[in-house]
């Protein structure tokens, strides 16, 4: 595999008027990687993507594509293609013409364009509609054509700006797998933007969590979920319980803290060394109930219960402190704990996380 970096973003900052959209953002993307920028809306994801495409210029910092500085290159000279959020298919062209557009501009000869267009439309299962216009397609079909159009010129990097957000739930799920497959088959570097954490966790090789114009954490989906770098990441990715804790000691990445339940526990930490107060994050599915309770165990009363079919979410009251737990209903009797019942509650300290507040 090629070890060269596909994308290098170095200390990129950008302001719109007085509003600072990006603050010294840096990251690398490896060749053939499925890289996701995840963050709440307004955190600067689109701005970053538009910088890679060349539609936006950073105020400072540099951007390299395959080792080459690109800030002086206009969009049409960058070997980068974009799948736009609203697809941006040309309404006056047939699907064929849409897919051929980039190839024509690159100066491919006719026979080669024809072959490539056919191949691409086939790859996204749209070959039977080649002569139709975008106006006659459903959202999912437009999505596929937009993908075919962007992949046809075989770009070095493919940029996707929330491409699934306009699709309905079922289709979105299917498109995730399809996108992932397209990425593996084509070997093209994908830079994928989304505010949907599930999408990010499901598809990515690596995720950069963006918040407030800054990179909050970069890592594999498991790292992002299980080892969040700060409170923002733990909160934005997945569900979690936060508790204010007092730090007693930090040793070798482990913090010993006093919890509001009165218990003292030792759990992995990030950025807590030297602080007195911190936040303990415990994911609901890491909390076990009843006879499954292990690790740190307490008594809690079920104050609310939400049956979701595959899961049941419980809200527990532990000496006046609220804790949410979720439990997989592995058997039909899985949902046996009733609201109002007092049960054993436990979680393994290793699966919790102490974070800077």
């Amino acid at each position, binding site marked *: 595999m090629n070890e060269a970096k596909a994308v290098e973003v170095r200390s990129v900052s950008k302001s719109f008027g007085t509003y600072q959209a990006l603050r010294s953002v840096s990251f690398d993307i490896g060749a053939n990687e499925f890289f996701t920028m995840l963050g709440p809306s307004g955190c600067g994801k689109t701005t970053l993507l538009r910088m890679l*495409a*060349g*539609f936006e210029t950073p105020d400072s910092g540099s951007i390299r594509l395959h080792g080459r500085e690109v800030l002086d290159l*206009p*969009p*049409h*000279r960058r070997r*980068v*293609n*974009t799948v*736009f959020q*609203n697809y*941006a*298919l*040309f*309404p*006056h062209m047939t699907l064929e013409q849409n897919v051929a*557009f*980039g190839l024509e*501009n*690159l100066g491919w000869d006719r026979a080669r364009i024809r072959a490539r267009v056919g191949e691409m439309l086939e790859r996204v299962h749209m070959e039977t509609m080649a002569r139709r*216009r975008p*106006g006659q397609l459903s959202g999912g079909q437009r999505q596929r054509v937009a993908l075919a*159009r*962007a992949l046809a*010129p075989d770009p070095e990097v493919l940029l996707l700006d929330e491409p699934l957000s306009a699709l309905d739930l079922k289709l979105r799920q299917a498109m995730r797998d399809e996108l992932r497959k397209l990425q593996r088959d084509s070997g093209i570097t994908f830079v994928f933007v989304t505010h949907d954490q599930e999408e990010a966790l499901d598809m990515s090789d690596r995720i950069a969590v963006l918040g407030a114009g800054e990179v909050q954490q970069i890592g594999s989906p498991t790292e992002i979920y299980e080892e969040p770098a700060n409170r923002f990441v733990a909160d934005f990715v997945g569900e979690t319980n936060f508790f204010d804790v007092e730090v007693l000691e930090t040793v070798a990445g482990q913090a010993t803290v006093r919890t509001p339940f009165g218990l003292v526990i030792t759990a992995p930490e990030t950025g807590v060394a030297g602080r007195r107060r911190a936040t303990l994050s415990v994911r609901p599915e890491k909390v076990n109930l009843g006879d499954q309770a292990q690790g740190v165990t307490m008594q809690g009363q079920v104050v609310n219960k939400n049956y979701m079919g595959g899961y049941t979410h419980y809200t527990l009251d532990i000496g006046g402190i609220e804790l949410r737990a979720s439990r997989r209903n592995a058997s039909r009797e899985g949902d046996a704990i009733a609201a109002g019942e007092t049960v054993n509650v436990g979680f393994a300290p290793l699966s919790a996380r102490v974070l800077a507040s």
Partner: protein
Amino acid sequence: MSDSALHNPPLDRPHRPRPWHNLPFWGLLPTWVLMGFALLVPVVIVAAVSVATRGTHGGFTWDFNLASYRQILFNEGWTGEMEFTPQYLMIIARTFVLAGATTLICLIFAVPVAYFIARQTAGTKAVLIYLVTLPFWVSMILRVYAWMIILGRGGPLPRFLESFGLPPGTSFMFNDFATLTAMVYTYMPLMVLPVFASIEKLDVTLIEAAHDLYANRWTTVRKVILPLTAPGIVSGAILVFVPSLGAVLEPTLMGGGKQMMMGSLIQLQFGGGRNWPFGAAIAMTLMCFVVIFLIFTAHRAARKGDVA
């Protein structure tokens, strides 16, 4: 709507047609009447006059006669023989060339202006659009007189150019250049507005998508912007071309009246020439050209209609 539709489900009662409830027809009746009197009746009158016979001392008599149409192409000699004369054909041709030139020049200026306006913020847009339509608030004849002063001997433009060595006493008046200047000026807003409307409607991400797919500026204009704004450009061209064909004021005042256009020719026949049937015949001819032009463009638009 009638309230019975609200209270009773329409299923159980057979629907009786009540023609006076036919809103599309009766509601539009005033429009039909107005259109009839303002459009159809005058056209019928002009058509009738065009086939009437010219009176000896001006005026005309209701005797069917195609002489006026013949007169457009042929000159009747003393002995009654018909001799082909291209003088009126030349005027028709000039009219088309000048109207075409006006349309083209308006288009060349209007597209960048409209593009510029379309890219401003909402507030600035409103102000700029207002400014574009501003000349309409001043009487057209005043505006043409203003141009006569600007271009005429001793006017600002000649004076300005004289300071760069143009011989003193130069005038830019009374030629086709002057006519064109006034026509372009007069009809420019009619081009800017529809072109602006279509450019504003254009989704900017399509332009970005074109650049993203390796199209340079020119390719983007040619393959994306022009095809998608064509409806606005066509409407603008019609709005400028059609009234340009009938222009009277500009060729008379700015062109000096020596080099006529069809509009001034028609006016002359109803005025000093005292040949109403001939004037009406030219007017009918002009109208035929306009109708043919409109049918042609409408046909083309319909053929490309599946685009939108």
